[in-house]
């Protein structure tokens, strides 16, 4: 694909996304699909308030200015909602990060959501960069000394996430984890009490707030996902028909229908 075509496609995708978001905001709000990982957050927030212990929120190595800038912004929005929910308590939440550029973002998020002002000393920048074991080791100390009510690790983490989650598990501290790195995602699935997969972290603000903007963004992510699934299914069927010419189109249409029904059933159950 030449550069001009790529530019045109990129522009079209950006415009289509903006249009879909606009349409989704006009539509009446519909029920969102369930994301099991987010359903325990209110209980953890309540526990933090009752036990007067902080929540630990971490960006990992996600930060502004890098390739995971939108991830850092999505994490900040989720953290904003969590902190606002925990404001009835006395212990301000702790926020940790290994990317220096996420420090101003965390400070801004804490300032807006925790209006009592005693949050500055609760921000921890641990200078180490991506996939740092030192960062993870420092956070195991946090789990021991600060005794957070729960850990919400939403950002960019590698396999070092295992150290943090194992430490939290041994101390009976519940955890929710999400990462844009494959290794981190696998560790989150295995070790965290709850894990968000793929784009679920980006959709999370819609589930913890009443903001219509966040809701419409989540709807558009689902729409894009449906488009991709339909596109991949059609491409698969076309490929299949060339590989096995003895199968006729009604058979392929039947297989396609079964795949779509299975997808819809999976969607309804998720």
């Amino acid at each position: 694909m030449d550069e001009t075509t790529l530019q045109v496609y990129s522009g079209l995708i950006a415009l289509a996304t903006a249009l879909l978001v606009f349409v989704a905001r006009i539509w009446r709000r519909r029920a969102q699909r369930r994301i099991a990982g987010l359903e325990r957050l209110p209980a953890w927030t309540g526990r933090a308030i009752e036990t007067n212990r902080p929540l630990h929120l971490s960006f990992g190595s996600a930060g502004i200015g890098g390739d995971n800038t939108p991830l850092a912004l999505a994490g900040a929005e989720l953290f904003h909602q969590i902190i606002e929910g925990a404001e009835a308590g006395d212990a301000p939440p702790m926020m940790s990060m290994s990317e220096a550029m996420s420090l101003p973002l965390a400070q801004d998020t804490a300032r807006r959501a925790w209006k009592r002002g005693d949050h500055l000393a609760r921000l921890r920048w641990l200078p180490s960069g991506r996939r740092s074991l030192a960062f993870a080791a420092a956070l195991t100390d946090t789990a021991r000394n600060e005794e957070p009510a729960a850990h919400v690790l939403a950002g960019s983490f590698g396999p070092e996430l295992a150290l943090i989650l194992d430490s939290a598990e041994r101390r009976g501290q519940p955890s929710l984890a999400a990462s844009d790195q494959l290794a981190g995602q696998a560790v989150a699935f295995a070790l965290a009490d709850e894990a968000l997969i793929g784009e679920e972290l980006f959709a999370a603000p819609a589930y913890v707030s009443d903001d219509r903007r966040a809701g419409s963004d989540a709807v558009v992510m689902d729409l894009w996902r449906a488009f991709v699934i339909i596109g991949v299914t059609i491409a698969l069927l076309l490929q299949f028909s060339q590989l096995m010419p003895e199968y006729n189109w009604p058979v392929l249409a039947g297989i396609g229908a079964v795949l779509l029904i299975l997808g819809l059933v999976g969607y309804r159950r998720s």
Partner: protein
Amino acid sequence: MNFGQRLGIALSAFVAFAVGAIAVTSLLLGDNPAIFNNQPGSERAAELLALPGDVLLRLVVIVISLSVVIGIANLLYVHVGRVARGKVYSGALLASFGVAIFWHLTRQGDPSLLEAVQLPIESSLAALLFVSLVAGASRVMQKRADVWGLLFVAVVVLVLLASVPLAELAPLRAWRDWLMRVPVSAGARAFLLGIAMATVVTGQRVLLGQDRSYRG
């Protein structure tokens, strides 16, 4: 919310939108004379279109550099406070910070501090990470007693067994290779596609000045 605050929010949203629109247009369409049909002067026009994006990216690099200074200030602020409350580890961190600065100033280019301290510690932590991962994998069925937990454990066991250098386990290697080539590769692509789609949606929210940081 008073008029001044509302004006400030509108202004910041407008600035965000304007800068975002300029940057996206410049980065998407700049530096490609083909979009001007390669007419005379199209090289110059393409360069001019790419210029704002280039300038903004350079500004980002400067801001990122400054943010490290903010980070160091935060580090010192937090850990000096913790030392005052009697936290020993924070004292060790501040002492290490001072030693590293002194070392760099007096023995520039000498990596022995890194080799003697940092690398062994990182290696030890990597070994500890392996133990944590195995311990965590053994607890998967306690946390997720469903078909996905079972599948996860089965795949981990299969991959670990296939990695053992025993002739009796050689047939498992073909299964492991297929697993890595087909389902794992498909899952990884699906995961990255999901992230990419969500990045586009989140990006447009920021570019349209709808992000919370512009909304007061």
